[in-house]
């Protein structure tokens, strides 16, 4: 009757090993291969030379590269979508020339807009009241914390390309935000003053695609 013990031990070992691998990789390590699908998205046109994050000479000839803070892992222009911990809400974060615009939305009751900056690899943005958004890029993925309605969540977001991203429409009956993720799933809400109501379907022809700073 040793079989069950062996089963148990193998399961514990596998779990332990996976946990250790996770623990070992938790500090920002740089050599994890980014998912191939996300790599080409990062700023295809803006950064011709300094694709390598650790460019030896920060004063590269390209003025655009100089505008980026040296060593900043944020591309000159990028869009990220992701979810908060527990998959409660969608978030879209857009970066352009170190300016950040972002939107958090659970599609039901919680939503918030954020504006700020992304310098030296740190994203810092503020929303209404005490709403705040922070983050940093690891292995091409953005992660950090976001707060709204007095609560705060951790989130992760991956680079995406159009038509995924962040959309906004302002009408007399309120401002609508939509997060469209890489799977095409859309999460949106309309805010009219203090009231929040379900968003109409996203119409790309009337909604504005938001870039960093918009």
């Amino acid at each position: 009757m040793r079989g069950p013990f062996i089963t148990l031990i193998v399961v514990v070992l596998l779990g332990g090993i996976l946990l250790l691998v996770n623990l070992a990789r938790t500090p920002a390590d740089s050599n994890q291969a980014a998912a191939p699908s996300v790599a080409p998205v990062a700023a295809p046109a803006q950064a011709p030379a300094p694709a390598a994050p650790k460019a030896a000479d920060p004063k590269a000839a390209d003025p655009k590269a100089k505008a980026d803070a040296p060593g900043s892992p944020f591309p000159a222009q990028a869009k990220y979508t992701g979810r908060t911990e527990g998959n409660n809400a969608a978030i879209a974060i857009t970066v352009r020339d170190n300016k950040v615009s972002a939107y958090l939305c659970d599609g039901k009751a919680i939503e918030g807009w954020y504006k700020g900056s992304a310098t030296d690899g740190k994203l810092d943005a503020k929303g209404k009241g005490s709403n705040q958004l922070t983050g940093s890029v690891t292995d091409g993925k953005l992660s950090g914390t976001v707060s709204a309605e007095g609560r705060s969540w951790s989130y992760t977001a991956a680079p995406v390309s159009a038509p995924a991203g962040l959309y906004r429409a302002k009408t007399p009956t309120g401002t609508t935000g939509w997060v469209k993720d890489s799977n095409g799933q859309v999460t949106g809400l309309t805010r009219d003053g203090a009231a929040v109501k379900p968003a109409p379907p996203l119409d790309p022809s009337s909604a504005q695609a938001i870039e960093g700073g918009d």
Partner: protein
Amino acid sequence: MSTPPFQPPDPYPTQQSPAPAQPVGPAPTSDPKAVSILLPLAAGCVVALLLGVYGRLHEPTGYSVNLIGFSSGAYAKAWLATLAVLLGVVQLFSARIMYGKAAAPAWVSTLHRWSGRIAVLLTVPVMVHCLFALGFEASTPRVLVHSLLGCLFYGTFVSKMLSLTRPGLPGWMLPVLGGVLFSALIGVWLTSAVWLFDVQGLHS
């Protein structure tokens, strides 16, 4: 035990007439059957509790080492869990044959054993990701049920593995543990993988 010769060990001594406050049941410490039942259950409870406490105390990282070939960690988990559920169904039917009236062929218990092992091993990366990246969550009924059932699943698994090694097991013990295990797995799967497929679409 110093029992006199020719006297069988008596687990229910009647001499102690000054009765304790509680009605006297079978003395649990000396009953091998009770040990066989309680020990694995206690171990399972400890494991379930430890998992839950770890999930609650560990600061969720929001990410974990991902598996290649899937659009996201969530989908890798969902498909691993779905495979485990399919194997869980194999478990259910092979157990049904093993506990049926007719004698089960030998390969059925082999199938039961190995489908179970593979099913649990498939769930381990999912569990580690859940514990490490997300943690024990109670923010919505779905994630609360999922968290509780996840702890129950591994606690029951430990109980069942330990029970298998115990002598003098009552006949209902393994079916009950197996039933709880299967139900917990289905519940965990419904509150995660099926939910994800429903919300974000059925793809890899």
